[in-house]
């Protein structure tokens, strides 16, 4: 292709040198064992350090690292020193699968922590099953992960309220609001969104059968990946007839921020006219800080300011001193719980082998940072963890840079967890649509209808 100019040639040598250097630097890092440890093993965390969910990945990896060092400070797990082995999947499903295999095959992870999105967990759960490595889910939470026949995985344990539990919480919350009769639904069109919305609608029918959804079902779901502009949805809400008393949504993170900002720009009193019920977290509150609207009825998984207990207070200070004064978000708390739960079970089993640790996990009770104990039931290996619901208010003043919830209720796990009959029917494929078994809508299951 003609002769090369000198400079690119030197550059080529440089590139080649970089390649060789990178290759040479590769190779496994050998673990240094302290005198009191049998060896070092990995906690495998494949999480979104980059990509759409980078915000959560950041908090989660910090929490897992903190958990590992705390465990080591108290003697390790079953005699082993634990190391947080963190890989980035960029919120990509394919990469999550690759990384999970690497964590298991190459890095010999003793336990895996679940990813952020349900799509990713769906893809990595089969790998954990195949290799008999326990997967502790603390973020991804679609109930299909534990009830879809193809996905049921004996090594999968969930310590996060699943979409059934969350949707049910929201349904109960809204059902209790006497002034609300008409509801507008906005949800992202992917597994998590559909799953949770279904649960909300099903619970709402039970709690408040006279309440109506004002927008047609085909407009409940916004195409995903979501457009950062919500003009159409905001316009649809304004144009709606009858006007809604409440907006139900489970849009989170950036979408939630965008929606709120844009709605407030259209009408500063938007959320007084149309209060919103949505999934939220400390991160979301922190994103908008004092501009986060008051009077919103939120459901949150583990907001530290509402779950006050001594264990949590200690943890908050511990976390803040380790990480530059950052408050631990819901994700950080749940993932820390996940690691600690597993560690306790492994210590009880005296070994890191998956099957043996599982016996100490399933059916057992554990304490948590959230101020209550939870049990991992055997039917779907879901912990009966609770969900916090409440209304945003400025009651706490300037204590935190964002509004907190008041009034607030910490719903008990047992009140919102999926009934065992339902679990069994879903797992057995007994809920049918058009003659074929489905898990999309549990309202089709015999025990729900009955």
């Amino acid at each position, binding site marked *: *292709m003609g*002769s*090369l100019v000198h400079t*690119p*040639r030197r*550059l*080529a*040598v*440089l*590139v*080649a040198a*970089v*390649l060789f250097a*990178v*290759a040479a*630097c*590769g*190779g*496994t890092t*050998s*673990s240094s064992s302290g005198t009191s440890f049998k060896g070092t093993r990995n906690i495998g965390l494949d999480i979104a*350090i*980059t990509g759409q969910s980078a915000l959560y990945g950041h908090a989660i990896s910090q929490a897992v690292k903190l958990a590992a060092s705390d465990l080591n400070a108290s003697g390790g797990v079953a005699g082993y020193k634990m190391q947080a082995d*963190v*890989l*980035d999947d*960029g919120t*990509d*499903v*394919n990469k999550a*699968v*690759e*990384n999970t*295999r*690497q964590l298991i*095959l*190459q890095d*010999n992870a003793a336990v895996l922590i679940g990813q952020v999105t349900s*799509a990713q967990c*769906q*893809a990595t*759960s*089969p790998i954990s099953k195949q290799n008999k490595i326990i997967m502790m889910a603390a973020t991804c939470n679609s109930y*299909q992960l534990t009830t879809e026949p*193809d*996905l049921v995985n004996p090594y999968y344990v969930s310590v996060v309220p699943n979409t059934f539990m969350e949707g049910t919480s929201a349904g109960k919350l809204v059902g209790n609001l006497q002034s609300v009769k008409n509801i507008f639904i906005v949800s992202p*069109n*992917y*597994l998590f969104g559909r799953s949770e919305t279904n649960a909300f609608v099903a619970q709402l029918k039970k709690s408040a059968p006279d309440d109506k959804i004002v927008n047609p079902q085909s407009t409940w779901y916004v*195409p*995903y990946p979501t457009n950062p502009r919500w003009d159409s949805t905001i316009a649809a809400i304004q144009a709606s007839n009858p006007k809604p008393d409440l907006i139900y949504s489970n849009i989170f993170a950036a979408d939630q921020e965008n929606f709120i900002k844009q709605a407030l720009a259209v009408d500063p009193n938007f959320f007084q006219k149309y209060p919103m019920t949505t999934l939220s977290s400390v991160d979301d509150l922190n994103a908008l800080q004092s501009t986060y609207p008051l009077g919103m009825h939120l459901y949150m998984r583990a907001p530290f300011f509402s779950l006050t207990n001594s264990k949590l207070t200690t943890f908050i200070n511990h976390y803040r001193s380790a990480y530059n004064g950052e408050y631990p978000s819901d994700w950080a708390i749940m993932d820390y719980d996940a690691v600690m739960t597993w560690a306790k079970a492994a210590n009880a089993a005296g070994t890191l082998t998956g099957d043996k640790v599982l016996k100490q996990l399933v059916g057992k009770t554990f304490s948590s940072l959230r101020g209550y104990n939870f049990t991992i039931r055997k039917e779907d290996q879901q912990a009966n963890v609770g969900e916090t619901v409440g209304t945003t208010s400025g009651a706490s003043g300037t204590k935190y840079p964002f509004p907190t919830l008041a009034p607030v209720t910490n719903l008990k796990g047992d009140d919102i967890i999926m009934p065992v009959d339902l679990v069994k029917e879903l797992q057995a494929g007994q809920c049918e649509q058009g003659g074929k078994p489905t898990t999309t809508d549990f309202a089709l299951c015999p025990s729900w209808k009955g």
Partner: protein
Amino acid sequence: MTSLLRLSRDARVRWTLSGLLILFALLVPPLAGLYELSNPDASARFYIFLGTEALVLALWAVSYNLMLGYAGMVSFAHAAYYGVGAYTVALLFQDYHVPVLLGLVAAPVVAAVFGLVTGLVALRAVRLYFSLLTLAISQLLYSLAFNAYGFTGGDNGIHGIEIPDALTDYTTMYYFVGAVVGICLLLMFLLTRAPFGAALLAIRENRERARSIGINVRAYELAVFTIASLFAGVAGGLFAIYQQQAFPEMMYWTANAQPVVVALLGGIGAFLGPAFGAFVYTELSNLISKDFPNQFDVLLGAIVLGVVLAVPGGLASLPNLFGALRSRFRHEPEAAVVESGGESIARADLAKVVRIEAIQADPVAVDRGEPLLVIEGLSRSFGGLRAVQDVNLTVHAGDRHAIIGPNGAGKSTLFNLITGRLKPSSGRVTFAGRDITGRPPHVIARAGIGRAFQITMIFPRLTVLQNLQYAILAHRGYTVRPFGVADRMFRDEAMELLEAVGLDQYADLAAGQLSHGDQRAIELAISLALGSRLVLLDEPTAGMSAFETQKAMDLVRRVAQEKHLTLLFCEHDMEVVFGTARTVTVMHLGRVLTEGTPDEVRGNPDVQKVYLGQLEEAAV
């Protein structure tokens, strides 16, 4: 064996590298085992798994390179067919419990159907627009996979695909995948060596030229698009088997970055280049995400950028690079770029010209003096501009007919109308009794009209010999063949033609390296190879020195006489016109002004006025 020795140093290096790569690929499992023995923290299974990934990526990337490296097409839809292949296997298993191995047979078929149908749409546009159209198509297919929840499982993807017990062993899986990939690569390789591959190279080098040697460019592009998507489907099917799942992100347009980066890294000029790149990329990717998890994108971007800027030929061209580096350090002079100086024309030999008779395809069917090309009422407008208006022209067999006229008279447009590059607004063109009005260029070329272009149109990166060989292959319809070795066919005939125009000593040089005049000689040789009866020369001596001009026209006249060629040419050089032409037509502002012998035209006062008028305008 002798043919191997005759290969250039470049090709020898490539064969060696390819051999090494294949050897390495065969030995991955035992090598991984050895690595595990020597390094207790490592896991052989993991590296074998990575190897399987690399194999599938190699197949995918090589199939992409069929379009990219061989036909010059940049597609953003390739990931879609990969995804279709994976979904075929997955859905057949999930809904109909079809065993995955059978599904693997179906995958390429389904992918090829998708490729064919979408290719028909995509190829309505060319080059950049083609690329953008493939982007639109791929996004549509992705949204189909993502939104059609009931059919494809939507954003969930499909999981838990069961595989035969034998394949659960990592090593067995590796060799199974390797076998399938190997067979596919072999098939693709044979295709690229065959006349079909020659046609692809011609298209990549010079689309216009390919058309004018009789290749129906769009048909070949559609064929290679479909074939590439077929093999992408196999790669996708293999993915579904060894990963045991399929998901829509496989089809998102940015997923195309993978085979493209891999192909670029390895080198798109060599057949196994992308395969080499696949192995390098897989290992590199693994290393970076392990050691630098927080800087993955920056590092990957930096490496790709580095390769793009410094080594555009990819890693496969590194040996050349190192060779050049080495010679620079040793202060060896670089191999001089060979430039021919137009001696070919000086060496034209009558005797050699006579020998080409042997390869003429069609005997002259039209008697001398009879009308060969008849143009009636031909017109063409561009918006409000009437470039050619109601032109009537007859070229008689055996004649040497010149068209002259000032700039903007419509000469080039007229040529384009005759050769099919443009469609006329009205009028008729008849050649040897056949109506060729508005037919596509490759059809007209087949009919017997050859064109030497105003801008030299050869296949620059192919050798001079290949230029001729491929022209013959295309003309005789051999290029549809997917088997055989193109570079071995019609060598002797091509060499004879080259000798006739005096270029035989440059047979193995890249045609783009030759001097301007010699490139014209190549074009002339190609016209002869096509067995053209009527040769259109569009300003044949433009850009030539006086010496070259004289010799070129000598050659043209001689060849025309010996081969009973009819010449139609337009020229600005009046010496050439009056020295060569027997009939002269004068055009002005799109119309025919007058026609006659050179002397008649020279003495015509209207003609003088037109040219003088032009001179006056120029002076203003």
